[in-house]
Each structure stands twice: as C-alpha cells, then as structure tokens.
C-alpha cells in the first residue's frame, strides 16, 4: 500500500482497498504465518463463492484440493516463510458450490515493521477456463496423434509448398518406406506423374479458395520403382484469414482393385473380340456348309441320273455317251473335293503363321510365277509399295491373294483392250492397305455386290470362274481381323482394297 495514492484522492485506505478489490478479478487475502485468513477482499464471493467473513479465521488448507495440500506446503508456503520472493502457485480450491476451481496465486511475505510479525499476502485469480482449454487441447492433440499414426488409411500432411511435414506408417508402408524417409520430400517426388497435372489443377483451385477438398485416383511411386494406385482425398486446412496452411491427404490403397479392374477390362475386350470372330466364323461356316452340300449334291444327283439312264438302255452308242458324261461328273466331283480340301486347309488357323512380310518381295514372286501368261497377254503392271512396305501376315497367304487377284484380272479382262494392273500400298492410321486395280470388264456391284465373295459365284457368261479365290481371300482377311472391299463399274475395271490389321510380332 503506497500512502501517496490515498493522499492524492483523500479517501481512507479501507475505502480505496474496497474500491480496487470489488472491480478486480483478483482475490486479495492476508494470512497469518500459518495461513489463517485475516483479510479477504470483498469480491471473494464472485470468485470462490464465500463471503469474506465466512473465511476470516479459517485456514485455506481446508479448502485446497487434498492432492495439492502438500505441494503447496512444500513449494509455496515454506519457501515464502524462508524469505523467497514472488512465488506463483497453481492449485485447486474448493468453491462454495462444492466443485474445485483452478486458482493461480502470487504470494509474498510481509513483515510488520514494528512487531516483526510475519504475514502472507496472496493475490489469486480463477484460471479454470484456461486450464480446461489447455487440457482439451492437449487431449485433442493426443487424440489426433493417435488417430493419425494408427489409422489404417494413409495420412500425409504437406505444407503449402507441397513438402511433406508428417506422414503415418500406413502411407509409408504402402510406398515401401519408413515414415522418416518420406518426411521432407516434395509430394511430386513420390507421385508417378500421369495424374500430377490433375492434382496440381485441384491444388490450384484449393489455393484460390474455389474448393476445400478434392478426391482423385492417382499413382504413387513405390520405393521399388513400380507404380501403385491410390484413391486420395485432399483437405485443406486454412488460417483465420482463409489462407491454406496445410493439406491433409488421406490415401486409400486401391492397387489390387485397379489391377483386377484393368485385367477385367482387358479380358472383356478379348472376349468381345473372340465373340466377334466366332460369330464371323460361324456365319462363314454356315454359308460354307450350304455351299458344300450344294456343290456335292449337284454332281452326285447327276451321277444318280446317269446311272439310272444307263440301266434303262442297251444301245451301245447311248451307253458310250453316258460314260463320257460320267467322266465329266467324276472330274467335277474331284475338283469340288480338292477345292474343299484347300478351303479347309486355309480355314485351319494352325496353318496361319504371321510374320513381317515385305509386300514387294511377295508380289515379285507371284509375278515371276505367272511371267509367261502375263507376257503372252501383254499385261502392263505397275506397283508401288513405298506407302507401306511390310505387313504382319502369312507370306503364303499374301502370295495366294496376289495370285488369285491376278487370275481374276486376267479372267475378266475387257476384250479388245490391253490389261493394265496397278498395285500400291498405303497407310490408314496403323492399318496398311493394298489396293489392286485393273481396267478389266468390272462388275455391276449394285446387282452382285452381296454375292461377289461367295463361293462358286461367277457373274460373267462364258467364263468358267470357280469363285473360290475371292471367297477365300475374304475368309482369310476377316479371320485375322482385316477386311476386303471392292469398287467397280461395269466396263471400267475393278479395284480391290485389302485392309490388313495392325500387326505386331509380340502377339
């Protein structure tokens, strides 16, 4: 108490004291050396629930929390009496309502100038609220740490620049690291790259406050170097101003799921391709069966008729004539059978051995084979395979195709004009196409378009076409995933387009 102050205002000490303490949140008390209250400021009721007169003459040890009495005695009370200054204590005090509140006290020793009597002077305030908050914070922190580190979901906290501040074992294990090996890395160092752009785009939107979180599927780089799929959700933690300070990423391992998903998709594609090729083959086989039965039944029924007629006659001349016909029918049967055999051979895919074939080479081989006939008919042949030099196909089949197309052109050459054949190759995307054109008599596609590739269909009078060639070419092309097209106008020639599928040696 400084005497100067009351002198200035002109009020008695007790009045000043009352004024100060009633508006203060500090409880001010004076104690005997053993602690007995001799003064309690009038605001005591507000802070600890007791009126001053209720406490005077009482000992505060009765109100301290039993667990802290000894501590106060040893750490505060005794040192004060020994003359130590400015002792601060925090302890629990029994409020009149029966609950303990947290008080923090500044304690001092006062010695009476004349009697030398020791008094203790305390000034206390209620800090329960602060203690609670701190305790809750500590608890929350502990809870968070537990959740963070024990979570089966991978968790990563990165700073706003993208460097990893903290990670849990789940995430570290997922990538084959120890967590301390990951902390400090930039998140792009452990990202596989493909989705980085998408990731950064979202981060940018988060940065700008457009969104607060995002989820994507992305690939991380495992320590071993392989890529692993994860589903991540990134949440931003902002400061009071709304600026991002941390990003929390939750990472779920979806590598197995992704792998089976990919496998499933691949299998699906393969299945669809197989189904398509089976449907095509089935359709071809049905048509083929129909053709076989027809082409075998026709000569067989001729045989039956001829034999019946033979039985009915004794005329030698007539028998001779029938025998000649039998000869012809037998030959026909033989031809049909050999055609069937060669067709069956081609249909058997075990014979199909694709390789990188130089188109130029195969074409030359066929031209060489037909040299005589081509020279005799003065056929003019142009070829240019610079637009696609090789295809992945069976060399034998490619030559068969060239042979058939050349024969076809020779057979349907326009009378009175020299046959000109032009062959070239070009690329359409990954596909190689060979076009084979002639200036022959052509074909009326409007009329025969749907029949041109059928077995034993010919469209010209007086020309003995077996019709097998084009049927086989179509069959072969389709069974390896290719296609054949024809463009023609009667009298102007025909162009066959052979679209070979994109081939690879690895398949």
């Amino acid at each position, binding site marked *: 108490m400084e005497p100067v102050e009351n002198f200035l205002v002109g009020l008695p000490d007790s009045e000043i004291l009352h004024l100060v303490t009633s508006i203060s949140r500090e409880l001010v008390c004076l104690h005997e050396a053993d602690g007995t209250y001799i003064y309690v400021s009038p605001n005591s009721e507000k802070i600890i629930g007791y009126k001053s007169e209720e406490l005077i003459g009482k000992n505060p040890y009765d109100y301290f929390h039993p667990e802290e009495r000894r501590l106060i005695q040893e750490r505060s009370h005794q040192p004060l009496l020994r003359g130590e200054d400015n002792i601060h204590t925090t302890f629990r005090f029994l409020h009149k309502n029966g609950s303990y509140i947290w008080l923090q006290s500044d304690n001092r020793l006062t010695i009476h100038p004349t009697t030398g009597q020791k008094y203790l002077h305390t000034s206390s305030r209620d800090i329960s609220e602060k203690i609670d908050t701190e305790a809750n914070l500590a608890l929350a922190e502990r809870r968070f740490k537990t959740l963070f580190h024990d979570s089966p979901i991978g968790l990563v906290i990165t700073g706003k620049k993208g460097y990893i501040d903290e990670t849990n074992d789940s995430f570290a294990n997922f990538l084959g690291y120890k967590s301390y090996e990951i902390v400090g890395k930039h998140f792009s160092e452990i990202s596989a790259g493909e989705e980085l752009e998408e990731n950064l785009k979202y981060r940018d939107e988060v940065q700008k406050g457009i969104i607060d979180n995002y989820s994507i599927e992305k690939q991380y780089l495992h320590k071993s170097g392989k890529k692993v799929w994860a589903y991540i959700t990134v949440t931003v933690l902002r400061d009071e101003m709304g600026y991002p300070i941390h990003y929390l990423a939750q990472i779920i391992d979806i590598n197995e799921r992704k792998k089976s998903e990919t496998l499933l998709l691949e299998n699906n594609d393969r299945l669809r391709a197989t189904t398509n090729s089976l449907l095509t083959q089935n359709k071809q086989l049905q048509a083929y069966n129909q053709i076989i039965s027809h082409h075998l039944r*026709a000569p067989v029924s001729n045989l039956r008729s*001829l034999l019946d007629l033979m039985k009915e006659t004794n005329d030698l001349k007539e028998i001779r*004539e029938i025998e000649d016909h039998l000869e012809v029918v037998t030959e026909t049967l033989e031809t049909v059978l050999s055609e069937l055999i060669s067709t069956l051979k081609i249909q058997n895919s075990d014979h199909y051995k694709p390789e990188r074939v130089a188109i130029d080479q195969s074409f030359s081989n066929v031209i060489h084979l037909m040299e005589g006939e081509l020279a005799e008919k003065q056929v003019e042949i142009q070829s240019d395979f610079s637009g696609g030099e090789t295809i992945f196909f069976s060399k034998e089949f490619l030559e068969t195709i060239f042979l058939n197309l050349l024969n076809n052109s020779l057979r349907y050459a326009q009378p009175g004009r020299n046959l000109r054949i032009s062959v070239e190759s070009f690329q359409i995307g990954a596909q190689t196409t060979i076009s084979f054109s002639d200036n022959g008599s052509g074909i009326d596609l409007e009329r025969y378009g749907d029949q041109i590739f059928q077995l034993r269909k*010919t*469209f010209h009078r007086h020309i003995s076409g077996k019709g097998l060639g084009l049927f086989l070419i179509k069959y072969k092309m389709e069974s390896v995933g290719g296609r054949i097209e024809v463009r023609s106008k009667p009298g102007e020639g025909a162009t066959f387009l052979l679209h070979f599928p994109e081939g690879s040696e690895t398949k």
Partner: protein
Amino acid sequence: MTPKICVIDDDTIYQFTTKKIISNAGIKEEVLIFSDAENALEFFNTESENRDKLPDIIFLDINMPFMDGWQFLDAFAKIVPRFPKSIEVFLVSSSVDEADTDRAAKIPLISGYIFKPFTKEKLWESLSRIQS
C-alpha cells in the same frame, strides 16, 4: 396333246439327263433348253404372245451363276399376264435349304419344288398338274 417342256439350268449334264428322261417317257416334242436365265427371259419376252412357241411347263434351276432362278422369276412375273396360256413353273434344285423351300412357297407363280435328281416319276407328277 404333247406337253411342251422348257428346262432352264446351266448344268450340261443335268440338261442331258433331263432330256433323256423326257424322251424315254415318250414325249416327242422337243425340249426347250436354256443354260442362261437371261437368254430364257429374252425368249419369253419375244414370244410372249406366240401360243405355239410358249412351253406348258418350266423346270427352273435356282442356282445359276449369272442370273439365278429367283431373279428370273421376278422378271418373268411381269410378262406372265401377256401370255395367252398358263404356264406351270417348277423350281428344281439340289439345295435342301429350308430358306429356299420357304421362299418358294411364298411365290404363287411356282407350282412346285423338285429336289434333284430329276426322275421319270417326278416328271409324270409335274405333268399331271397341266390342265388341258
């Protein structure tokens, strides 16, 4: 009256045996034979009002290389109203494909469907359909 018979079929052996079967059956009238349906069509077009030249019965093959039996029938149906007499048309085929027999059943112009081989019995049966 002896029936006038027309055969349209590209198979020369079949032409021979059919002709023989017809003559063995005692039919003296010459058989009209076409290897090519378009030639046959041309004949019917030219002789469409000539009662003496027109046949009473046609044995028509389905599978022919240039113009097949179906195509012939399409064109033939258009000139039928001009004919001064009725003509029975029988489809003849070695095909046992149901699609062919079903298709034939839907064409009123067709009197019947004959499976090869063509025989004396099948000839008589067909001729019995001719009203005279």
